[in-house]
C-alpha cells in the first residue's frame, strides 16, 4: 500500500513541478514587454556605447591636423603582443637640432586585445580608445591601420596648452 501511495505521490508531485516550470515560461510568453532584445542595425542611430568601451585605438587629431604623439615608442614596448608599430623619422628643426618625429603609427586592429596598457602608459595622452565597433571586413589587409592622418604633425607645446 505504501508503495502505491509513493507511486501516486511521485506522479502528482512530478506533475506539479512540471506545471511550475510551465508557469514561468508561460508568464514570459504572455508578457511581451519583458522582451529585452535590442534590434541592432535598426537602432543604430540611437545605440550609445558606454564611454569607456574599448572598440578601437585612435589617435585624436585637432582641427590643424595635429596630434600629440612624440614617437617615444613606449606604447610599442608595452604592448604585450606587438599590435603597435611606431615608425619614426629624423628631422632637423630650424635651429639645427635633430629631432625624432612620428612617421607612421601602425596599428594592427586584427591583433589588438584591448588590454589598455598602451593608453595607460602613454606619457602624452596621444592615443585613446574610441567606441567604434563595426570593423568587420572582407579583406584582412584592411585591418592594419595607420593612425596618424596623412600630413599630420606634432602638436606644438604652445597650442597644446
Amino acid at each position: 500500500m505504501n508503495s502505491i501511495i509513493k507511486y501516486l505521490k511521485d506522479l502528482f508531485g512530478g506533475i506539479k513541478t512540471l506545471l511550475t516550470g510551465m508557469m514561468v515560461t508561460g508568464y514570459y510568453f504572455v508578457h511581451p514587454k519583458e522582451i529585452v532584445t535590442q534590434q541592432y542595425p535598426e537602432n543604430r542611430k540611437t545605440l550609445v556605447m558606454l564611454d569607456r568601451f574599448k572598440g578601437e585605438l585612435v589617435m585624436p587629431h585637432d582641427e590643424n591636423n595635429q596630434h600629440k604623439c612624440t614617437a617615444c615608442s613606449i606604447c610599442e614596448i608595452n604592448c604585450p603582443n606587438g599590435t603597435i608599430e611606431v615608425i619614426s623619422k629624423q628631422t632637423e628643426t630650424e635651429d639645427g637640432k635633430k629631432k625624432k618625429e612620428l612617421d607612421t603609427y601602425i596599428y594592427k586592429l586584427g591583433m589588438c586585445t584591448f588590454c589598455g596598457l598602451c593608453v595607460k602608459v602613454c606619457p602624452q595622452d596621444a592615443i585613446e580608445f574610441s567606441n567604434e565597433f563595426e570593423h568587420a571586413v572582407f579583406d584582412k589587409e584592411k585591418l592594419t591601420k595607420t593612425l596618424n592622418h596623412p600630413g599630420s604633425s606634432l602638436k606644438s607645446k604652445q597650442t597644446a596648452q
Partner: protein
Amino acid sequence: MAFSIYDLTAFNQSIHEALVQNLSPFWALIVEMTIIGLVFLLFYAIVGLFLVYAERKICGFIQNRVGPNRVGPYGIFQTIADFIKLLMKELIYIKNADKFLFNLAPFIVIIASFMAIAAIPFGLGLHAIDFNIGVLYVMAVSSLGVIGILLAGWSSNNKYSLIGAMRSGAQIVSYELSIGLSLVTIVILSGSMQLSTIVEQQRNCWFIFSGHIPAFIAFVIFLIASTAETNRGPFDLAEAESELTAGFHTEYSGIKFAFFFLAEYMNMFIVASMAATLFWGGWMPFHIPGLTSFNHVMDFIPPFFWYMGKTMVVIFLMMWFKWTFPRLRIDQLLKLEWKFLLPINLFNIVLMALVVLMGWHL
C-alpha cells in the same frame, strides 16, 4: 443546423459530377485525385512552413526575444528563405553508407506523414478518405515513420546516428502503445472508428467533457505520448543535441535533412489534429447545451477555423513543453511509458468501459 452553410459535401459533389459528365469514369477519377493530391500538397507545404515559423516566434516570446523579424514583415518569410537555402544546398553522400537505404529513409518518413494526413477531417465534408477504421489507419500509417528513422540511422554509417536511431526506435515503438490505447479509450466512448462519425457524435458535447475523468486521462496520456512519438519536446533523445550532435540525421544535408525536419513538424500537426478530432470535437463548434443563441453564434465560425484553432492550441501546448522541460534520459523515458503510462492506460480503459457500461457518458 447553422453550420450546414459551410457544408462542402455539395460542392465536392458538384465537382465530381461535372467531371463524371465530361470524362470517362477512369479519367474522372484520375483528375479528381490529382486535384485532391495537389490541394493536399499545397496544404502540407503551407502547414509545414507555418509551423516552423510559429515555433520560432513562440520560443522567441517565451525566451524574451523577438525571433525572426528581418525577412518580410515580422519575418514571415523566414521559413521560405530556409527552404530555398536548403534546396540549394549540396547533398553529401557518405562513404561506406548504404546509398539505397540512405536515400530511401527520407521517403519513408515523409510518405508516412503524408499518408496519415489523408484521413483527417478538416471540416464538414473536407476529407480525402473516410475510412471506417480511420483511427487505426492513422495510427498504423504513422507508425511506419519509425522505420525511416531506423534506416536513416543505420545507413549513415555514423555512431551518433546509430545510437540516435536505436533510442528513437525504442522510444517510438513504446509510445506507439500509449497512443493506441488512449485512442481505444475514445473508441469505447464513441463506438465507432470512423473519424467523421466520431466528430459527428461530438455535436453537442466534446468527448473530453462527456467522457468524464477517463477521457481527460486519455487526453493527457495522448498528449504526452504523441509528444514522444514525434521526437519532440522533452523527448527529443533521438536528436539529443547535447549528446548525439544531431542524432539519426547527423549525416543528412540539404533537402534530405529538410524532409526530416518537415516530417517532424507534420507529425506534430497530425497528432495534434488527432487530439483535436478525438477529444475536442474536430471541426465541431463549441456548444453549451441549453444556450441556443450562444450555440448559434458559435456555429457561424466556419468549421475549418474551429478545427485549425483546436489543432493550434494542442501544437502550442507541445511547443510550450519543448521550451520548458529538460530532456529525459532514455531509461527514464521508457520507465515513464512502461511503468506509468501503460498501466494507467490499461486501467483507464477498464474505467471507460465501466462508464459506458453504466451509461454515465450520456
